[in-house]
């Protein structure tokens, strides 16, 4: 192989092969999938995320949550995502068409969050969990995000947003309160907005083995 141009042509064609197959082909097919309009209600799914949650997604990105939490559910029978309560159906491309940036993730040091908003966890639980995960989940290795909260002096009326019922070692000094910052509020709004429960025609589980 002493001919430079021939060598270069081979090198070019090799990567052109997967660039065409993986990138271009899917850009022209999967990239054209749009929302699905439900015939009964006339609503388009997936629905756009409200404003505060949108800002919360940026906080999620800033803090690198993606490195321990996925947002993709594997189909029942492949893994055990359904049994863990992470979602009853597999995630499909259409679930993501409203998202400007996809946060699929590849690591489950923590649980999947594709449908965390559908779980019976209220904002108070999320705030405490973010303040220090040991409050709600003893033994967790999630880092504390206390820097998303502010301990401040109560002036006049206590804030309705103040975190209530903190155990003594976390409780603020007398006359003070712990309040979530705007970023914490946005992040919790984002987490609570995460749910993909609508069944698209393509997302209904298929029994591959054939028997029923």
């Amino acid at each position, binding site marked *: *192989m002493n001919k430079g141009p021939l060598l270069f042509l081979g090198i070019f064609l090799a990567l052109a092969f997967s660039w065409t197959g993986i990138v271009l082909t899917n*850009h022209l097919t999967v990239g054209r999938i749009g929302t699905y309009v439900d015939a009964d209600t006339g609503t388009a799914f997936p629905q756009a995320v409200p404003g505060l949650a949108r800002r919360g997604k940026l906080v999620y990105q800033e803090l690198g949550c993606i*490195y321990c939490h996925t947002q993709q559910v594997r*189909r029942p029978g492949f*893994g055990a995502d359904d049994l863990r309560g992470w979602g009853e159906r597999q995630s499909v491309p259409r679930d993501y068409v409203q998202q400007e940036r996809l946060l699929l993730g590849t690591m*489950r040091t923590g649980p999947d969050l594709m449908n965390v908003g559908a779980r019976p966890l209220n904002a108070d639980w999320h705030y405490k969990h973010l303040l220090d995960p040991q409050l709600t989940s003893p033994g967790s290795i999630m*880092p504390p995000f206390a820097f998303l909260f502010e301990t401040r002096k109560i002036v006049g009326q206590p804030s309705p947003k103040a975190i209530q019922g903190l155990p003594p070692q976390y409780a603020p000094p007398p006359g003070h309160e712990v309040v979530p910052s705007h970023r914490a509020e946005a992040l919790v709004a984002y987490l609570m907005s995460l749910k993909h429960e609508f069944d698209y025609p393509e997302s209904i589980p298929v029994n591959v083995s054939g028997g029923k």
Partner: protein
Amino acid sequence: MSSADSSLAASLKPGPAEATAERALLSEIDVSTRRPVFFFLCAALVWLLAGTAFALIASFKLHNPAFLGQAEWLTFGNVRTAHLNSVVYGWATNAAFAVAIWLMARLSRAQLRHLGILDVAGLFWNVGVAIGVVGILRGDSTSIEWLEFPAYATPVLFVAYALIGLWAIITFRFRQPGHVYVSQWYLLAALFWFPWLYSIAQIMLVFAPARGAVQPLVNWWFAHNVLGLWFTPIGLASIYYFLPKVLGKPIHSYYLSALGFWSLALFYNWAGVHHLIGGPEPAWVITAGIVASLLMVIPVVATGINHHVTMVGSFGRLKDSPTLRFIVFGGVSYTLTSLIGSAMAVRSFNELAHFTHFTVAHAHHGLYAFFTMVMFGAIYYMMPRLTGREWPSAPLISVHFWFCAVGITIYVVGLKIGGLIQGWEMIATTTDPQTGEVALRVPLFLDIVKHTLPYLVSRSLAGVMITIGHLAFAVHFVWMLLQPRAVAGTQPVRLSPDAALPASRA
């Protein structure tokens, strides 16, 4: 060395007069590459130390989450990402630039020209990486794996890369007529592939994001190919050069070299989508990725056999040559990690290993045990020829080798066991014989977390060992530069003074 080997080597080696002329020519070429290559090596070393510090912090945090927990800029998600990007774009890529430019000039028998442009490009690359890493710590990460540098850092990186790659390709263009060696194929390919991958990924993910599920496909097409089409070819080019160079005998088979190169070029670039098995992507793409991942066995086995047979009969040389020791460790790791990687793409095994620490261990097996170790070996060979000084201390090389080799072995083995436990507990189920109801064996997620803790601690231990190895290397590097330059006729440093040195090295 057996007599058969020495006669074979002798029959293929030029006579003494030609050898002297050859050495003088190479020496002139080395001198022409000195400034940029030396700059890239120094930058690589700085980033290696920074990346190691970030790695240790991240590793400690994973079993002790309160450690440095108050500082937002050091939260796990930031510091882990700063680690990845400083070792990938800081350490590994700077080292790859140094090796690629030096090898390309030597193999093309061409002096490097117009160094000023290369200097500027090198400076810009490192400024870009620094801006990117600071951006990540500030919370400006894009949250796209392997592409976390904020958009304000990446254009300068692309331009810098394009210039550096272009310079190596121009050097190739001005080569002396004759045989193009296998290392040059790999270098050319890598230098052409990376900017293609990087520019497409930046455009389709950051500047004009593609819609929906196309993004992860582009993401993993890029991220896996950074390893497969950038670091792997540079690593293999180095092995193909230094192995025969140190041993003083030719590579076993030209045809295995060609088979290895073209099958890697053809299959590796499809393999990346195996990171999305079980994900929201068309089944045919995933299946194609799995097939390509399994076909990767062909180049890996061909290259492995080629290197191994070249090495046969010369294993005694591992005792005295630092370069050979690191290169052989890297070569063996390449074969192992690639075969395990192919297995990880099989759906049934992927179901278990995906989303676990097993993948993290695998990534370090490839980028550290293979690529980083090969780069260390290359640096031990290049530095004396660039600076005219010998490495002052054999014991420090031994400390560097053993702490890194044992450290990464503990890292990979420990974390893979932890990953398997994590993966099994995540998916294992039992079926009630009466009701037929399927239930999880380990229903509480927190129990799985607790069971992986010992392996996360073993990773920190391994990290401390690797850090000691890196510090030994850094101290030795600086010590070497502080020494006076040897006048002429230096003896290469040997790890074992009793081992016989063949005439070819004297």
